[in-house]
Protein backbone atom coordinates (compact mmCIF):
# COMPACT_ATOMS: atom_id res chain seq x y z
CA UNK A 1 0.00 0.00 0.00
CA UNK A 2 1.54 3.23 -1.08
CA UNK A 3 1.65 6.22 1.17
CA UNK A 4 0.66 9.68 0.13
CA UNK A 5 3.65 11.63 1.31
CA UNK A 6 1.99 15.03 0.91
CA UNK A 7 4.03 18.18 1.11
CA UNK A 8 7.52 17.06 2.06
CA UNK A 9 9.58 19.97 0.73
CA UNK A 10 9.27 22.12 3.80
CA UNK A 11 10.38 25.71 3.43
CA UNK A 12 11.47 27.47 6.53
CA UNK A 13 9.56 30.74 7.19
CA UNK A 14 12.86 32.46 7.88
CA UNK A 15 13.94 31.84 4.30
CA UNK A 16 10.68 33.18 2.94
CA UNK A 17 11.27 36.34 4.94
CA UNK A 18 14.88 36.68 3.85
CA UNK A 19 14.07 36.13 0.22
CA UNK A 20 11.75 39.11 0.32
CA UNK A 21 14.35 41.45 1.83
CA UNK A 22 16.63 43.04 -0.79
CA UNK A 23 20.30 42.31 -0.29
CA UNK A 24 19.77 39.59 2.26
CA UNK A 25 19.96 36.69 -0.20
CA UNK A 26 23.74 36.77 0.18
CA UNK A 27 23.32 35.74 3.79
CA UNK A 28 20.83 33.01 2.93
CA UNK A 29 23.37 30.35 2.14
CA UNK A 30 25.29 30.97 5.33
CA UNK A 31 22.18 30.90 7.46
CA UNK A 32 21.02 27.81 5.61
CA UNK A 33 24.23 26.07 6.57
CA UNK A 34 23.75 27.19 10.12
CA UNK A 35 20.18 25.91 10.20
CA UNK A 36 21.16 22.60 8.64
CA UNK A 37 23.90 22.22 11.22
CA UNK A 38 21.39 22.97 13.95
CA UNK A 39 18.76 20.61 12.60
CA UNK A 40 21.03 17.64 12.12
CA UNK A 41 22.61 18.01 15.50
CA UNK A 42 19.43 18.40 17.50
CA UNK A 43 17.20 15.61 16.26
CA UNK A 44 14.87 15.19 19.19
CA UNK A 45 13.29 11.79 19.22
CA UNK A 46 9.85 10.58 20.07
CA UNK A 47 10.14 6.97 21.24
CA UNK A 48 7.23 5.08 19.74
CA UNK A 49 8.60 2.09 21.64
CA UNK A 50 6.20 -0.80 21.83
CA UNK A 51 8.21 -3.97 22.36
CA UNK A 52 11.69 -5.49 22.47
CA UNK A 53 13.23 -2.88 20.18
CA UNK A 54 12.14 -0.33 22.74
CA UNK A 55 14.51 -1.87 25.27
CA UNK A 56 17.40 -1.67 22.83
CA UNK A 57 16.33 1.87 22.12
CA UNK A 58 16.58 2.59 25.83
CA UNK A 59 19.97 0.90 25.87
CA UNK A 60 21.00 3.20 23.03
CA UNK A 61 19.93 6.20 25.04
CA UNK A 62 21.68 4.87 28.15
CA UNK A 63 25.24 5.14 29.24
CA UNK A 64 27.23 2.91 26.90
CA UNK A 65 26.11 4.18 23.51
CA UNK A 66 24.73 7.51 24.69
CA UNK A 67 22.73 9.12 21.93
CA UNK A 68 22.95 12.44 23.74
CA UNK A 69 26.32 13.15 22.21
CA UNK A 70 24.58 13.44 18.83
CA UNK A 71 22.23 16.00 20.30
CA UNK A 72 19.29 13.61 20.35
CA UNK A 73 17.11 13.94 23.39
CA UNK A 74 14.15 11.71 24.14
CA UNK A 75 10.92 13.55 24.72
CA UNK A 76 7.67 12.03 25.89
CA UNK A 77 5.43 14.20 23.78
CA UNK A 78 5.17 14.32 19.99
CA UNK A 79 4.90 18.10 19.94
CA UNK A 80 8.53 18.60 20.92
CA UNK A 81 10.01 16.13 18.51
CA UNK A 82 11.58 15.93 15.07
CA UNK A 83 12.04 12.20 14.66
CA UNK A 84 9.61 9.43 15.45
CA UNK A 85 11.42 6.17 16.07
CA UNK A 86 8.96 3.33 15.67
CA UNK A 87 10.62 0.59 17.71
CA UNK A 88 8.63 -2.59 17.85
CA UNK A 89 5.62 -4.40 16.49
CA UNK A 90 2.66 -2.24 15.56
CA UNK A 91 -0.68 -4.00 15.83
CA UNK A 92 -3.92 -3.10 14.12
CA UNK A 93 -5.18 -1.83 17.47
CA UNK A 94 -2.18 0.46 17.87
CA UNK A 95 -1.73 1.64 14.28
CA UNK A 96 -4.42 4.39 14.32
CA UNK A 97 -2.80 5.80 17.47
CA UNK A 98 0.62 5.82 15.83
CA UNK A 99 -0.83 7.64 12.86
CA UNK A 100 -2.45 10.19 15.15
CA UNK A 101 0.79 10.79 17.06
CA UNK A 102 2.65 11.20 13.79
CA UNK A 103 0.15 13.82 12.70
CA UNK A 104 0.65 15.67 15.98
CA UNK A 105 4.36 16.15 15.34
CA UNK A 106 5.28 19.52 13.84
CA UNK A 107 7.01 19.78 10.48
CA UNK A 108 9.78 19.16 9.57
CA UNK A 109 9.66 15.58 10.83
CA UNK A 110 11.23 12.27 10.02
CA UNK A 111 10.40 8.67 10.74
CA UNK A 112 12.79 5.84 11.56
CA UNK A 113 11.58 2.24 11.36
CA UNK A 114 13.64 0.33 13.92
CA UNK A 115 13.67 -3.44 13.83
CA UNK A 116 12.23 -5.96 11.46
CA UNK A 117 8.76 -5.85 13.05
CA UNK A 118 8.40 -2.18 12.22
CA UNK A 119 9.92 -2.68 8.76
CA UNK A 120 7.89 -5.65 7.59
CA UNK A 121 6.15 -7.30 10.53
CA UNK A 122 8.88 -9.95 10.59
CA UNK A 123 7.52 -13.38 11.53
CA UNK A 124 4.34 -11.79 12.78
CA UNK A 125 3.54 -10.36 9.37
CA UNK A 126 0.97 -13.00 8.49
CA UNK A 127 -0.85 -12.74 11.79
CA UNK A 128 -4.33 -11.29 11.90
CA UNK A 129 -3.45 -8.63 14.49
CA UNK A 130 -0.17 -7.23 13.17
CA UNK A 131 0.48 -4.48 10.65
CA UNK A 132 2.91 -5.79 8.01
CA UNK A 133 5.34 -2.90 8.11
CA UNK A 134 4.72 0.67 9.20
CA UNK A 135 5.42 1.97 5.71
CA UNK A 136 1.88 0.91 4.89
CA UNK A 137 0.72 4.05 6.66
CA UNK A 138 3.74 6.21 7.52
CA UNK A 139 6.42 7.72 5.26
CA UNK A 140 9.58 6.06 6.53
CA UNK A 141 12.89 7.87 6.08
CA UNK A 142 15.38 5.38 7.47
CA UNK A 143 15.11 1.63 7.98
CA UNK A 144 17.25 0.08 10.71
CA UNK A 145 17.10 -3.69 10.26
CA UNK A 146 17.71 -6.24 13.00
CA UNK A 147 15.75 -8.21 15.56
CA UNK A 148 16.34 -6.12 17.56
CA UNK A 149 19.09 -3.92 16.07
CA UNK A 150 22.02 -3.32 18.36
CA UNK A 151 22.23 0.18 19.83
CA UNK A 152 25.18 0.84 17.55
CA UNK A 153 23.02 0.07 14.54
CA UNK A 154 20.40 2.54 15.69
CA UNK A 155 23.15 5.11 16.01
CA UNK A 156 24.25 4.33 12.47
CA UNK A 157 20.66 4.76 11.34
CA UNK A 158 20.56 8.20 12.91
CA UNK A 159 23.84 9.13 11.22
CA UNK A 160 22.24 8.10 7.93
CA UNK A 161 19.26 10.27 8.80
CA UNK A 162 21.56 13.23 9.42
CA UNK A 163 23.17 12.66 6.05
CA UNK A 164 19.77 12.49 4.43
CA UNK A 165 18.63 15.72 6.06
CA UNK A 166 21.79 17.45 4.81
CA UNK A 167 21.23 16.20 1.28
CA UNK A 168 17.52 17.09 1.25
CA UNK A 169 18.21 20.61 2.47
CA UNK A 170 20.94 21.03 -0.13
CA UNK A 171 18.51 19.88 -2.81
CA UNK A 172 20.69 16.90 -3.71
CA UNK A 173 18.42 14.10 -2.49
CA UNK A 174 16.91 12.17 -5.34
CA UNK A 175 16.08 8.62 -4.18
CA UNK A 176 13.41 7.62 -1.80
CA UNK A 177 14.68 5.32 0.91
CA UNK A 178 13.31 1.97 -0.06
CA UNK A 179 12.64 -1.08 2.02
CA UNK A 180 15.84 -3.14 1.95
CA UNK A 181 15.38 -5.99 -0.48
CA UNK A 182 16.79 -9.37 0.52
CA UNK A 183 19.72 -10.63 -1.48
CA UNK A 184 18.99 -13.09 -4.22
CA UNK A 185 20.83 -15.87 -2.44
CA UNK A 186 18.70 -15.31 0.64
CA UNK A 187 15.48 -15.85 -1.25
CA UNK A 188 16.28 -19.30 -2.60
CA UNK A 189 19.02 -21.72 -1.61
CA UNK A 190 21.98 -21.60 -3.95
CA UNK A 191 22.22 -25.39 -3.81
CA UNK A 192 19.01 -27.29 -4.58
CA UNK A 193 17.53 -29.11 -1.62
CA UNK A 194 17.88 -32.85 -1.12
CA UNK A 195 14.38 -33.49 -2.34
CA UNK A 196 14.79 -31.36 -5.45
CA UNK A 197 15.12 -33.57 -8.59
CA UNK A 198 17.40 -30.92 -10.15
CA UNK A 199 20.01 -31.49 -7.50
CA UNK A 200 23.41 -32.75 -8.51
CA UNK A 201 23.55 -36.51 -7.87
CA UNK A 202 27.24 -36.48 -7.04
CA UNK A 203 26.67 -33.90 -4.36
CA UNK A 204 23.96 -35.99 -2.71
CA UNK A 205 26.11 -39.09 -2.86
CA UNK A 206 29.05 -37.19 -1.37
CA UNK A 207 26.91 -35.89 1.47
CA UNK A 208 25.42 -39.29 2.21
CA UNK A 209 28.87 -40.81 2.22
CA UNK A 210 30.20 -38.23 4.64
CA UNK A 211 27.18 -38.68 6.91
CA UNK A 212 27.66 -42.44 6.75
CA UNK A 213 31.22 -41.99 7.91
CA UNK A 214 30.03 -40.06 10.94
CA UNK A 215 27.37 -42.59 11.70
CA UNK A 216 24.52 -40.11 11.43
CA UNK A 217 22.99 -41.42 8.23
CA UNK A 218 20.08 -43.04 10.00
CA UNK A 219 19.41 -40.08 12.19
CA UNK A 220 19.32 -37.67 9.32
CA UNK A 221 16.88 -39.86 7.44
CA UNK A 222 19.35 -39.90 4.61
CA UNK A 223 18.70 -43.53 3.83
CA UNK A 224 15.23 -42.67 2.72
CA UNK A 225 16.45 -39.71 0.74
CA UNK A 226 19.15 -41.83 -0.87
CA UNK A 227 16.62 -44.26 -2.21
CA UNK A 228 14.38 -41.40 -3.24
CA UNK A 229 17.12 -39.69 -5.23
CA UNK A 230 18.04 -42.93 -6.92
CA UNK A 231 14.53 -43.66 -8.05
CA UNK A 232 13.92 -40.16 -9.36
CA UNK A 233 13.77 -40.25 -13.18
CA UNK A 234 16.23 -37.91 -14.90
CA UNK A 235 14.76 -34.62 -15.97
CA UNK A 236 13.83 -34.50 -19.63
CA UNK A 237 15.88 -32.02 -21.64
CA UNK A 238 13.80 -29.31 -23.21
CA UNK A 239 16.37 -28.52 -25.89
CA UNK A 240 17.00 -31.49 -28.20
Amino acid sequence: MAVDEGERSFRHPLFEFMARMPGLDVATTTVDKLLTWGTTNSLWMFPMATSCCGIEFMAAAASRVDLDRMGTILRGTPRHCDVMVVAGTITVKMAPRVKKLWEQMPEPKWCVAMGSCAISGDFYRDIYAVVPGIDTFLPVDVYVPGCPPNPEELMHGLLRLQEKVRLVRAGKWSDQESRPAPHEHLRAPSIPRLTDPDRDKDLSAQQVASADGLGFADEMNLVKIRTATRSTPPKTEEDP
Partner: protein
Amino acid sequence: MKFSTATATVADPYLDISTYEADADLMVLNLGPQHPSTHGVFRIKLYLDGEVIVKAVPYPGFLHRGVEKLCEKLTYTMMTPIIDKNDYLSPMMNEQAINMAFEDLHGSAVPRRAKYLRTIFAELQRVASHLVWLGTFGVDLGGALGGGTTLFMHCFREREMILDLFEEVTGCRFHYNTHMVGGNRHDIPAKWAKGVHRVIGVIAERIDEYEILLTSNKMFVDRTKGVGVIDAELALSLGITGPILRAAGVDHDLRRDAPYHAYDEVDVRVAVETAGDCQARAIVRILEMRESLRIVGELIDNVPEGPINGYRPTKTPLQVKITKGQGYACLEGPRGELGTYVIAGGDNRGASPYRLKIRSPSLHAMSCLPYVLPGLTVSDTIATFGSLDPVMGEVDR
Protein backbone atom coordinates in the same frame (compact mmCIF):
# COMPACT_ATOMS: atom_id res chain seq x y z
CA MET B 1 -1.62 -20.33 56.36
CA LYS B 2 -2.11 -17.00 58.11
CA PHE B 3 -0.60 -13.84 56.79
CA SER B 4 0.60 -10.92 58.82
CA THR B 5 0.00 -8.08 56.44
CA ALA B 6 -1.51 -4.67 56.43
CA THR B 7 -5.04 -5.02 55.14
CA ALA B 8 -5.90 -2.72 52.28
CA THR B 9 -9.25 -1.33 51.32
CA VAL B 10 -10.12 -3.02 48.07
CA ALA B 11 -12.20 -0.99 45.65
CA ASP B 12 -15.07 -2.30 43.61
CA PRO B 13 -13.77 -2.73 40.05
CA TYR B 14 -17.27 -2.96 38.58
CA LEU B 15 -18.45 0.34 40.07
CA ASP B 16 -21.24 1.86 37.99
CA ILE B 17 -20.05 5.40 37.45
CA SER B 18 -23.62 6.71 37.04
CA THR B 19 -24.35 5.85 40.67
CA TYR B 20 -21.52 8.07 41.89
CA GLU B 21 -22.47 11.38 43.56
CA ALA B 22 -24.54 13.30 41.06
CA ASP B 23 -22.98 16.71 41.75
CA ALA B 24 -19.41 15.44 41.54
CA ASP B 25 -17.64 16.87 38.53
CA LEU B 26 -15.98 13.71 37.26
CA MET B 27 -13.18 14.00 34.73
CA VAL B 28 -12.05 11.20 32.45
CA LEU B 29 -8.30 10.96 31.95
CA ASN B 30 -6.74 8.62 29.44
CA LEU B 31 -3.33 7.36 30.44
CA GLY B 32 -1.73 5.77 27.43
CA PRO B 33 -1.58 3.80 25.20
CA GLN B 34 1.57 5.75 24.39
CA HIS B 35 2.79 7.13 27.65
CA PRO B 36 6.43 7.09 28.76
CA SER B 37 5.61 5.53 32.11
CA THR B 38 3.30 2.76 30.95
CA HIS B 39 6.36 0.63 30.11
CA GLY B 40 5.11 -0.07 26.64
CA VAL B 41 1.65 0.34 25.25
CA PHE B 42 -1.14 0.13 27.76
CA ARG B 43 -4.18 2.29 28.28
CA ILE B 44 -5.91 3.07 31.56
CA LYS B 45 -9.06 5.12 31.62
CA LEU B 46 -9.20 7.00 34.91
CA TYR B 47 -12.35 8.59 36.30
CA LEU B 48 -11.16 11.44 38.51
CA ASP B 49 -12.96 13.32 41.24
CA GLY B 50 -10.62 16.24 41.68
CA GLU B 51 -7.28 14.48 41.72
CA VAL B 52 -8.52 11.29 43.33
CA ILE B 53 -9.27 8.28 41.19
CA VAL B 54 -12.80 6.93 41.47
CA LYS B 55 -12.59 4.15 38.94
CA ALA B 56 -9.85 2.75 36.73
CA VAL B 57 -10.55 0.74 33.60
CA PRO B 58 -7.45 -0.81 32.00
CA TYR B 59 -7.38 -1.68 28.31
CA PRO B 60 -4.56 -4.05 27.38
CA GLY B 61 -4.05 -5.62 23.99
CA PHE B 62 -2.15 -2.94 22.09
CA LEU B 63 0.70 -5.38 21.58
CA HIS B 64 -1.36 -8.50 20.96
CA ARG B 65 0.76 -10.26 18.36
CA GLY B 66 -1.02 -13.60 18.27
CA VAL B 67 1.98 -15.60 19.44
CA GLU B 68 -0.23 -18.47 20.58
CA LYS B 69 -1.81 -18.70 17.14
CA LEU B 70 1.60 -18.53 15.49
CA CYS B 71 2.88 -21.37 17.67
CA GLU B 72 0.10 -23.62 16.41
CA LYS B 73 1.67 -23.33 12.96
CA LEU B 74 5.30 -23.92 13.95
CA THR B 75 7.18 -27.05 14.89
CA TYR B 76 8.46 -27.48 18.43
CA THR B 77 11.99 -26.57 17.37
CA MET B 78 11.00 -23.37 15.63
CA MET B 79 9.20 -21.87 18.58
CA THR B 80 12.06 -20.94 20.91
CA PRO B 81 13.30 -17.81 19.11
CA ILE B 82 9.75 -16.52 18.83
CA ILE B 83 8.86 -17.08 22.47
CA ASP B 84 11.99 -15.03 23.26
CA LYS B 85 10.11 -11.92 22.22
CA ASN B 86 7.31 -12.39 24.75
CA ASP B 87 8.87 -11.19 27.93
CA TYR B 88 11.63 -9.23 26.30
CA LEU B 89 13.34 -8.38 29.56
CA SER B 90 14.01 -12.02 30.38
CA PRO B 91 14.25 -14.06 27.17
CA MET B 92 16.18 -16.84 28.93
CA MET B 93 13.24 -17.56 31.20
CA ASN B 94 10.81 -17.68 28.29
CA GLU B 95 12.91 -20.21 26.48
CA GLN B 96 13.31 -22.33 29.56
CA ALA B 97 9.61 -22.25 30.43
CA ILE B 98 8.48 -23.39 27.02
CA ASN B 99 11.19 -25.99 26.59
CA MET B 100 10.51 -27.43 30.03
CA ALA B 101 6.91 -28.07 28.99
CA PHE B 102 8.03 -29.73 25.77
CA GLU B 103 10.59 -31.83 27.61
CA ASP B 104 7.94 -33.05 30.04
CA LEU B 105 5.65 -34.10 27.22
CA HIS B 106 8.39 -35.48 25.02
CA GLY B 107 10.03 -37.36 27.87
CA SER B 108 13.48 -35.88 27.31
CA ALA B 109 15.99 -35.84 30.12
CA VAL B 110 18.23 -32.82 30.58
CA PRO B 111 21.88 -33.46 31.51
CA ARG B 112 23.12 -32.13 34.81
CA ARG B 113 25.52 -29.66 33.22
CA ALA B 114 22.70 -28.14 31.17
CA LYS B 115 20.61 -27.81 34.32
CA TYR B 116 23.41 -25.90 36.02
CA LEU B 117 23.87 -23.65 33.01
CA ARG B 118 20.15 -22.98 32.85
CA THR B 119 20.12 -22.02 36.51
CA ILE B 120 23.05 -19.66 36.07
CA PHE B 121 21.54 -18.07 32.97
CA ALA B 122 18.19 -17.68 34.71
CA GLU B 123 19.65 -15.99 37.76
CA LEU B 124 21.82 -13.62 35.73
CA GLN B 125 18.78 -12.81 33.63
CA ARG B 126 16.77 -12.10 36.75
CA VAL B 127 19.36 -9.56 37.84
CA ALA B 128 19.35 -7.95 34.38
CA SER B 129 15.57 -7.77 34.38
CA HIS B 130 15.38 -6.27 37.85
CA LEU B 131 18.03 -3.72 36.86
CA VAL B 132 15.83 -2.55 33.98
CA TRP B 133 12.93 -2.33 36.40
CA LEU B 134 14.98 -0.26 38.84
CA GLY B 135 16.18 2.07 36.10
CA THR B 136 12.75 2.67 34.65
CA PHE B 137 11.24 3.01 38.11
CA GLY B 138 13.77 5.78 38.71
CA VAL B 139 12.61 7.52 35.53
CA ASP B 140 8.96 7.04 36.50
CA LEU B 141 9.44 8.68 39.84
CA GLY B 142 11.16 11.66 38.31
CA GLY B 143 13.55 13.25 40.75
CA ALA B 144 12.83 10.87 43.58
CA LEU B 145 15.70 8.51 42.86
CA GLY B 146 18.68 10.72 42.39
CA GLY B 147 17.22 13.04 39.82
CA GLY B 148 15.91 12.42 36.32
CA THR B 149 17.61 9.64 34.45
CA THR B 150 20.56 9.17 36.80
CA LEU B 151 19.51 5.80 38.14
CA PHE B 152 18.45 4.71 34.67
CA MET B 153 21.95 5.35 33.35
CA HIS B 154 23.55 3.53 36.27
CA CYS B 155 21.31 0.47 35.97
CA PHE B 156 21.77 0.11 32.25
CA ARG B 157 25.52 0.29 32.75
CA GLU B 158 25.32 -2.81 34.94
CA ARG B 159 22.85 -4.55 32.67
CA GLU B 160 25.24 -4.21 29.73
CA MET B 161 27.80 -6.19 31.70
CA ILE B 162 25.39 -9.12 32.01
CA LEU B 163 24.39 -8.89 28.35
CA ASP B 164 28.06 -9.04 27.45
CA LEU B 165 28.36 -12.28 29.40
CA PHE B 166 25.44 -13.75 27.49
CA GLU B 167 26.88 -12.53 24.22
CA GLU B 168 30.06 -14.46 24.94
CA VAL B 169 28.03 -17.64 25.34
CA THR B 170 25.36 -17.35 22.67
CA GLY B 171 26.63 -14.76 20.24
CA CYS B 172 23.47 -12.74 20.75
CA ARG B 173 23.00 -9.69 22.86
CA PHE B 174 19.31 -9.83 23.42
CA HIS B 175 17.34 -12.77 22.02
CA TYR B 176 19.43 -15.82 22.64
CA ASN B 177 17.75 -18.94 21.19
CA THR B 178 20.07 -21.01 23.31
CA HIS B 179 17.71 -23.56 24.84
CA MET B 180 16.21 -26.52 23.06
CA VAL B 181 14.37 -29.69 23.94
CA GLY B 182 16.84 -31.87 25.81
CA GLY B 183 19.35 -29.26 26.85
CA ASN B 184 21.28 -26.24 25.70
CA ARG B 185 22.64 -25.23 22.35
CA HIS B 186 25.76 -23.35 23.43
CA ASP B 187 28.34 -24.33 25.99
CA ILE B 188 30.06 -21.70 28.08
CA PRO B 189 33.47 -20.65 26.78
CA ALA B 190 36.67 -21.20 28.72
CA LYS B 191 37.34 -18.70 31.51
CA TRP B 192 33.73 -17.53 31.41
CA ALA B 193 33.49 -18.15 35.14
CA LYS B 194 36.21 -15.58 35.73
CA GLY B 195 34.18 -12.94 33.93
CA VAL B 196 31.08 -13.90 35.88
CA HIS B 197 32.90 -13.49 39.17
CA ARG B 198 34.10 -10.07 38.15
CA VAL B 199 30.62 -8.96 37.08
CA ILE B 200 28.79 -10.21 40.14
CA GLY B 201 31.39 -8.56 42.33
CA VAL B 202 30.87 -5.19 40.68
CA ILE B 203 27.08 -5.45 40.67
CA ALA B 204 26.87 -6.60 44.27
CA GLU B 205 28.80 -3.52 45.33
CA ARG B 206 26.55 -1.20 43.37
CA ILE B 207 23.34 -2.81 44.59
CA ASP B 208 24.33 -1.68 48.07
CA GLU B 209 24.41 1.89 46.78
CA TYR B 210 20.99 1.52 45.21
CA GLU B 211 19.53 0.10 48.38
CA ILE B 212 20.63 3.20 50.26
CA LEU B 213 18.80 5.25 47.63
CA LEU B 214 15.64 3.22 48.15
CA THR B 215 15.54 3.20 51.91
CA SER B 216 17.02 6.53 52.97
CA ASN B 217 15.87 8.96 50.26
CA LYS B 218 12.99 10.84 51.83
CA MET B 219 11.41 11.74 48.50
CA PHE B 220 11.38 8.14 47.40
CA VAL B 221 9.95 6.94 50.71
CA ASP B 222 7.24 9.59 50.63
CA ARG B 223 6.14 8.60 47.18
CA THR B 224 6.15 4.84 47.69
CA LYS B 225 5.46 4.06 51.35
CA GLY B 226 1.85 3.08 51.84
CA VAL B 227 1.05 3.63 48.16
CA GLY B 228 -0.67 0.98 46.06
CA VAL B 229 -1.07 -1.62 48.77
CA ILE B 230 -1.89 -5.09 47.47
CA ASP B 231 -2.73 -7.38 50.35
CA ALA B 232 -2.15 -11.12 50.33
CA GLU B 233 -5.79 -12.12 49.88
CA LEU B 234 -6.21 -9.97 46.79
CA ALA B 235 -2.89 -11.06 45.32
CA LEU B 236 -3.69 -14.76 45.74
CA SER B 237 -7.18 -14.36 44.38
CA LEU B 238 -5.88 -12.52 41.31
CA GLY B 239 -3.14 -15.06 40.74
CA ILE B 240 -0.37 -12.53 41.26
CA THR B 241 2.98 -14.21 41.84
CA GLY B 242 6.59 -13.25 42.13
CA PRO B 243 7.96 -10.21 43.96
CA ILE B 244 4.50 -8.62 44.27
CA LEU B 245 3.14 -11.63 46.16
CA ARG B 246 6.24 -11.85 48.33
CA ALA B 247 6.02 -8.14 49.12
CA ALA B 248 2.50 -8.85 50.39
CA GLY B 249 3.83 -11.25 52.99
CA VAL B 250 3.32 -14.62 51.28
CA ASP B 251 6.38 -16.84 51.48
CA HIS B 252 6.07 -18.49 48.08
CA ASP B 253 8.81 -19.04 45.55
CA LEU B 254 8.77 -21.84 43.00
CA ARG B 255 12.55 -22.07 43.07
CA ARG B 256 12.34 -23.36 46.63
CA ASP B 257 8.81 -24.78 46.78
CA ALA B 258 8.70 -26.76 43.54
CA PRO B 259 12.36 -26.97 42.49
CA TYR B 260 13.31 -27.33 38.85
CA HIS B 261 16.71 -27.06 37.10
CA ALA B 262 19.43 -27.23 39.74
CA TYR B 263 17.57 -25.34 42.44
CA ASP B 264 17.27 -28.45 44.60
CA GLU B 265 21.05 -28.37 44.97
CA VAL B 266 21.29 -24.81 46.23
CA ASP B 267 19.76 -23.11 49.20
CA VAL B 268 17.34 -20.43 47.97
CA ARG B 269 16.57 -17.82 50.60
CA VAL B 270 13.29 -16.17 49.75
CA ALA B 271 12.92 -12.45 50.38
CA VAL B 272 9.59 -11.58 52.01
CA GLU B 273 8.21 -8.20 53.04
CA THR B 274 4.89 -7.64 54.71
CA ALA B 275 3.79 -4.11 53.84
CA GLY B 276 2.58 -4.86 50.30
CA ASP B 277 3.18 -1.32 49.08
CA CYS B 278 5.45 0.05 46.35
CA GLN B 279 8.41 0.36 48.68
CA ALA B 280 8.09 -3.24 49.84
CA ARG B 281 8.06 -4.43 46.24
CA ALA B 282 11.17 -2.39 45.53
CA ILE B 283 12.98 -3.82 48.55
CA VAL B 284 12.00 -7.39 47.65
CA ARG B 285 13.47 -6.94 44.19
CA ILE B 286 16.69 -5.51 45.58
CA LEU B 287 17.01 -8.46 47.97
CA GLU B 288 16.26 -10.86 45.12
CA MET B 289 19.03 -9.39 43.02
CA ARG B 290 21.48 -9.95 45.84
CA GLU B 291 20.23 -13.50 46.35
CA SER B 292 20.51 -14.25 42.62
CA LEU B 293 24.10 -13.03 42.58
CA ARG B 294 24.85 -15.27 45.55
CA ILE B 295 23.32 -18.30 43.78
CA VAL B 296 25.34 -17.61 40.64
CA GLY B 297 28.51 -17.27 42.67
CA GLU B 298 27.79 -20.58 44.37
CA LEU B 299 27.04 -22.49 41.19
CA ILE B 300 29.51 -21.08 38.71
CA ASP B 301 32.54 -22.82 40.21
CA ASN B 302 30.78 -26.16 40.54
CA VAL B 303 29.40 -26.62 37.04
CA PRO B 304 29.72 -30.39 36.46
CA GLU B 305 31.46 -31.78 33.42
CA GLY B 306 29.47 -33.61 30.81
CA PRO B 307 27.26 -33.06 27.79
CA ILE B 308 25.05 -30.01 27.55
CA ASN B 309 22.36 -31.78 25.59
CA GLY B 310 20.59 -35.07 25.99
CA TYR B 311 20.78 -35.73 22.26
CA ARG B 312 23.75 -36.21 20.02
CA PRO B 313 24.60 -33.06 18.09
CA THR B 314 23.40 -33.09 14.51
CA LYS B 315 23.46 -30.43 11.87
CA THR B 316 19.72 -30.60 11.36
CA PRO B 317 17.59 -29.53 14.31
CA LEU B 318 16.14 -32.26 16.45
CA GLN B 319 12.74 -33.34 15.20
CA VAL B 320 10.47 -33.26 18.23
CA LYS B 321 7.23 -35.12 17.79
CA ILE B 322 4.60 -35.20 20.52
CA THR B 323 1.53 -37.01 19.39
CA LYS B 324 -0.70 -36.73 22.44
CA GLY B 325 -0.96 -35.40 25.95
CA GLN B 326 -1.43 -32.14 27.79
CA GLY B 327 1.05 -30.62 30.11
CA TYR B 328 1.93 -27.57 32.14
CA ALA B 329 5.39 -26.53 33.21
CA CYS B 330 6.31 -23.40 35.05
CA LEU B 331 9.25 -21.60 36.56
CA GLU B 332 9.82 -18.59 38.74
CA GLY B 333 10.50 -15.75 36.35
CA PRO B 334 11.48 -12.24 37.40
CA ARG B 335 7.79 -11.33 37.47
CA GLY B 336 6.39 -14.54 38.90
CA GLU B 337 5.13 -17.89 37.76
CA LEU B 338 5.82 -18.12 34.05
CA GLY B 339 4.10 -21.22 32.76
CA THR B 340 3.26 -22.92 29.52
CA TYR B 341 0.22 -25.10 29.01
CA VAL B 342 0.57 -27.29 25.94
CA ILE B 343 -2.11 -29.41 24.33
CA ALA B 344 -0.25 -31.71 21.96
CA GLY B 345 -1.53 -33.88 19.18
CA GLY B 346 -4.75 -32.99 17.46
CA ASP B 347 -4.89 -32.75 13.73
CA ASN B 348 -1.31 -31.82 12.89
CA ARG B 349 0.42 -35.19 13.48
CA GLY B 350 2.44 -34.18 16.49
CA ALA B 351 4.80 -31.80 14.73
CA SER B 352 3.35 -28.70 16.36
CA PRO B 353 1.09 -28.16 19.38
CA TYR B 354 -2.66 -28.11 19.04
CA ARG B 355 -2.98 -25.26 21.50
CA LEU B 356 -0.35 -23.44 23.48
CA LYS B 357 -1.10 -21.04 26.28
CA ILE B 358 1.43 -18.94 28.09
CA ARG B 359 0.56 -18.12 31.66
CA SER B 360 2.10 -14.71 31.92
CA PRO B 361 2.65 -13.23 35.37
CA SER B 362 2.42 -9.69 34.05
CA LEU B 363 -1.18 -10.10 32.91
CA HIS B 364 -2.16 -11.19 36.40
CA ALA B 365 -0.20 -8.31 37.90
CA MET B 366 -1.92 -5.76 35.70
CA SER B 367 -5.35 -7.09 36.60
CA CYS B 368 -4.93 -5.65 40.10
CA LEU B 369 -5.13 -2.06 38.83
CA PRO B 370 -8.95 -1.66 39.07
CA TYR B 371 -8.77 -2.86 42.67
CA VAL B 372 -5.79 -0.82 43.81
CA LEU B 373 -5.94 2.50 41.97
CA PRO B 374 -9.26 3.97 43.25
CA GLY B 375 -8.50 6.31 46.13
CA LEU B 376 -5.02 7.16 44.90
CA THR B 377 -3.93 10.20 42.95
CA VAL B 378 -2.61 10.30 39.40
CA SER B 379 0.99 10.56 40.54
CA ASP B 380 0.49 7.48 42.73
CA THR B 381 -0.76 5.67 39.63
CA ILE B 382 2.63 6.10 38.01
CA ALA B 383 4.44 4.85 41.10
CA THR B 384 2.11 1.84 41.42
CA PHE B 385 2.41 1.03 37.75
CA GLY B 386 6.18 1.16 37.85
CA SER B 387 6.39 -1.00 40.96
CA LEU B 388 4.37 -3.77 39.28
CA ASP B 389 7.11 -4.10 36.65
CA PRO B 390 4.88 -5.13 33.76
CA VAL B 391 6.20 -6.16 30.36
CA MET B 392 3.63 -5.49 27.69
CA GLY B 393 4.92 -8.15 25.35
CA GLU B 394 3.97 -10.63 28.02
CA VAL B 395 0.70 -9.01 29.04
CA ASP B 396 -0.67 -9.05 25.52
CA ARG B 397 1.40 -11.79 23.89
